[in-house]
């Protein structure tokens, strides 16, 4: 039964990918990673410049999996309660309260997009992190649950003024950090500019076949994937070595040009981070029609699940993206399996 279930769901997952690929072109890798995070039930940090299609991407996925989609913009004056409710004076002249973005879709909330999360204050981060971890919220003397919610947050990496960098403990709550970059292919770039179908986002998203997946079944099926995709002893040992290498890269001969490796890493990947990596790797193995995790599956998610968790010396924080990429590539090149 499980085999049939796995095959059936895989076909649906690949159909969803195909649908999203039609509306967001040239983003096969991010789309595969988002699909992975949806089935691994992990929250995602999106990294990319403005206008590269992050919102379109998330809306397309939301249409494909169903459920509610909510979005909020991070601003310096955003307060935690802005996520929960709005107050306003109604036409009757009396104050009114309406549900904020978190509560608006109720338990059906499937995608919550926090744009420019680093513009919001740490108090807002705290609330969001609790919701991410517990998928519940106390408000109006009641407990609200969001069992199917996945948070996507975008960081503005360019502007640093009036921003609050997400601390490493908060970054660790996200399963992945996925870079969204403009495609290099000239034909795709030309299509994005001149093809009018990409100009109207609403109409574009409407072309995605709705409800390819059932958002309220994802949690249950995620467990099926995790229990059916196995990891051999060799694979476990390999993952363990990767983990150790993130803590002490020099022990594995990993070096990054222009970096004092003795001072670089303050903290490697966390146990939570490694377990999330293995969850994502299992999903990747399933998407590739395998019954066990291979090193290739770990490689597919290694950068996106580990890079944002590494804690570097402050002196190297400005070059974080570049250094993390080189260091993790070096680790993959240095650690052997079997």
């Amino acid at each position, binding site marked *: 039964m499980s085999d049939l279930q796995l095959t059936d769901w895989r076909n649906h997952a690949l159909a969803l990918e195909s649908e999203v690929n039609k509306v967001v072109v040239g983003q096969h890798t991010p789309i595969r990673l988002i699909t992975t995070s949806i089935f691994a039930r992990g929250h995602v940090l999106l990294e990319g410049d403005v206008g590269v299609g992050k919102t379109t991407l998330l809306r397309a996925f939301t249409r494909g999996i169903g459920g509610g989609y909510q979005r909020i913009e991070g601003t310096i004056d955003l307060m935690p309660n802005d996520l929960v409710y709005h107050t306003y004076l109604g036409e009757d002249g009396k104050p009114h309260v309406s549900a904020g973005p978190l509560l608006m879709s109720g338990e059906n909330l499937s995608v919550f997009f926090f744009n420019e999360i680093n513009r919001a204050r740490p108090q807002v981060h705290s609330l969001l992190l609790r919701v991410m971890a517990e998928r519940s919220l106390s408000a109006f003397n009641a407990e609200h649950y969001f069992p199917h919610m996945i948070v996507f947050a975008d960081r503005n990496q360019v502007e640093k003024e009036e921003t609050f960098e997400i601390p490493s403990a908060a970054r660790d709550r996200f399963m992945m950090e996925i870079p969204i970059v403009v495609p290099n292919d000239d034909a795709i770039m030309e299509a994005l500019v001149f093809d009018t179908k990409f100009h109207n986002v609403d109409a574009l998203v409407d072309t995605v076949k709705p409800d390819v997946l059932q958002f309220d079944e994802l949690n249950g099926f995620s467990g099926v994937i995790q229990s059916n995709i196995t990891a*051999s002893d060799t694979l476990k040992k390999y993952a363990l070595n990767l983990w150790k290498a993130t803590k002490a890269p020099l022990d594995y001969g990993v070096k990054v040009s222009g970096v004092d490796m003795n001072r670089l890493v303050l903290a490697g990947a966390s146990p939570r981070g490694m377990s999330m990596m293995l969850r994502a790797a299992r999903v990747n193995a399933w998407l590739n029609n395998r019954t066990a995790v291979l090193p290739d599956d770990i490689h597919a998610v290694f950068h996106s699940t580990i890079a944002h968790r590494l804690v570097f010396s402050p002196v190297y924080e400005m070059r974080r993206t570049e250094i993390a990429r080189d260091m993790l590539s070096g680790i993959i090149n240095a650690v052997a399996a079997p």
Partner: protein
Amino acid sequence: MTKFIRFFSLILLFCATPLSALAIDSQDLPDIKEGFVTIKTIDPTQRVGYTVGDVIERDVILTIKAPYTLVETSLPIKGYEKRYRGQVIGIELKNIHHEKDVHKDYTTHHIKLAYQVFTNSVVAKNAALGPEYLNLINMKNNKDLVKYRIPSLGIAISPLAIFGAVKVEDNMSPMLEPLLMTHTQEKQWLKVALGILVISLLGLLYILGVHTWLPRMGGPFASAYRTLRKTPNSAEGLKQAVSKLHLAFNNTGAMSIFNDNLDTFLAKKSNFSPLKYEIQQFFALSRQVYFEPNATHDIGNNPSKWLVQFARRCRDCERGLTPTPLDSKAGA
């Protein structure tokens, strides 16, 4: 009584007459005609520097043609003191050894003469070995008795020690070659040192060649191939073989090689490009052995044998050779 004495004297005279005839002094006999005797002497190379007690040997090889033959009683007598103008010169024949080879037309005599010096002088003085006179008799005519002279060999007797103020240069004989320093020992040491140097260089080459006797013999795949040939054909042996080949790939590419970075490896090591499909087969086998037992591969029922063939082909690529054709039965 008187009669008896006369008779005895007559008998004695009769007996003594032939002896006296034979004891004729050789020097008084006529010389043999030319062509009947040839001589070859082997003389000592040292002609000077002899002093009391020294023994000087000289070989004489005489070839005497028929009808003449050597009267062997005329050979020099051991213990005879050489004289010059009646004076003893202090050289004595210490020993003589005579052999002969008789042929139909000629006879060859090998005469080895050993003289000993019994004189000395405070200054260098000339001396000579010989000459020696030999008697030859015509076998067809007993009255034809002739002599042959073995030429003398000039030598110089040197003092045991120089006394007084002597200028060596003035006292040096032009017959004495310059004394050279002996370098036999140095030559031997040089040979030993050269031997050690050659052995050291070979050792260095061996070390630089990663402990191999032939160039590129110590490559990762060459080593893997040698190991795989000895690996047992069992499940555990298969795991070891796959692991060894993974190690060879990693060492060759100087990075961990997986299925997902195989193209990078082949771009870096284009020698292995002809084996791309087989390398993919190998990774499929590795996947089954190490990660996913349910996975399938198309190698066949005897993957251990296939791995040995595969390792050999990889070794060929490593050495820049065209890979050995795959045995069609491998893996079957």
